[in-house]
């Protein structure tokens, strides 16, 4: 896999530009989510919130071009119903381009 080009090394990405920066992202299974709010409580990036009343109370990811999600998956760990998980890691491009990474996989007991 490639390393960084000279141009990439010299480019500081604009942190709020979704064209160059890919933040982490979580997917929420609204069938399973019961809106308990544990994930929103502990999210270090303040990316999650709960909305709705009664049965429609669900967790959502905030609507921001580049959210502060770092796909730490702490939300997935605390969720009692297995309703949330990070979809991909973050990659800010340019000088901060992620290197030598592949998809998210749980621990493997070789």
């Amino acid at each position, binding site marked *: *896999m490639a390393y960084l080009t000279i141009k990439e090394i010299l480019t*500081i*990405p604009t*942190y*709020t530009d979704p064209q160059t*920066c890919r933040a982490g992202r979580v997917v929420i299974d609204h069938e399973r989510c019961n809106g308990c709010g*544990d994930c929103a*409580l*502990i*999210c*270090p*990036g*303040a990316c999650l919130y709960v909305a709705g009343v009664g049965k429609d109370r669900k967790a959502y990811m905030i609507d921001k071009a580049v959210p*502060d999600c*770092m796909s*730490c*998956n*702490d939300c*997935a*760990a*605390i969720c*009692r119903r297995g309703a949330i*998980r*990070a979809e991909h*890691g*973050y990659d*800010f491009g340019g*000088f*901060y381009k992620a290197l*030598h*990474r*592949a*998809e*998210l*996989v*749980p*621990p493997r*007991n*070789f």
Partner: protein
Amino acid sequence: MARTLTGEKGGRKTSFGEMYTWHEGMDWNPVERVILERRSVRKYRDEQVPEKLVRRVLEAGRFAPSAGNAQPWRFVVVRDRDMLDEMEKYVRLRCRILKFMLDWESSPLGRLSWLLAQTYIRLMPNELHPIPFGAIRLIADGKLKLFHGAPTVIFILMDKRGVSKPQVDVGICGQNMVLAAHSLGLGTCWVGFVELLKFGRKWKKMLGIRWPYRLMEAIALGYPVGQPDGMVARELHEIDWWEGGRKRTVF
């Protein structure tokens, strides 16, 4: 010989693989379990951790490996709620100043803040990486807490005169304590933002931050709310594997 270990976590009984042996596909042994299930805990119960338990966690740090057995660390334990709140307030103030100077989206300095940010990001690419940059904004806005309500915080100071790479030694020492704490039923969170306390004369004096010591990290310690620990998915990393004169790539 084949003894099965059991433990209880969150009211559920679990069994572990054996210690000090391996066969393919075996269950996680207790050490692996603690390593793999450790998550940063960001919501703590009000209950104070017993003094003896904190002392026990600190013992795990004392026996960490370090280059040349230099042990380049010093611990400061703070269990004073008012003091921790005040520290949090101070760090938030510092973050607000940084946000004012560097956050080009909200700063009244306008284009100047963009230029400042571009300059400082190049000078401090680690401290101002997009993730901590976002965290500065969140702390300034009060959306991210510093100690997350932990009743005990262990500050780790590094002796700058340590052998070779004292930063690494301090990290190993901290991880020892973190893993010990989780295995004892506690929750922890690394707090790097405490480094901003070095700008406060009061904190420098109270935490003993002066040459040859540098405040590196803090570990928040307490009983977690809910069950934050658990195994999750993480990125695979590309690994180069040289064997038999040839290189292959594994993940």
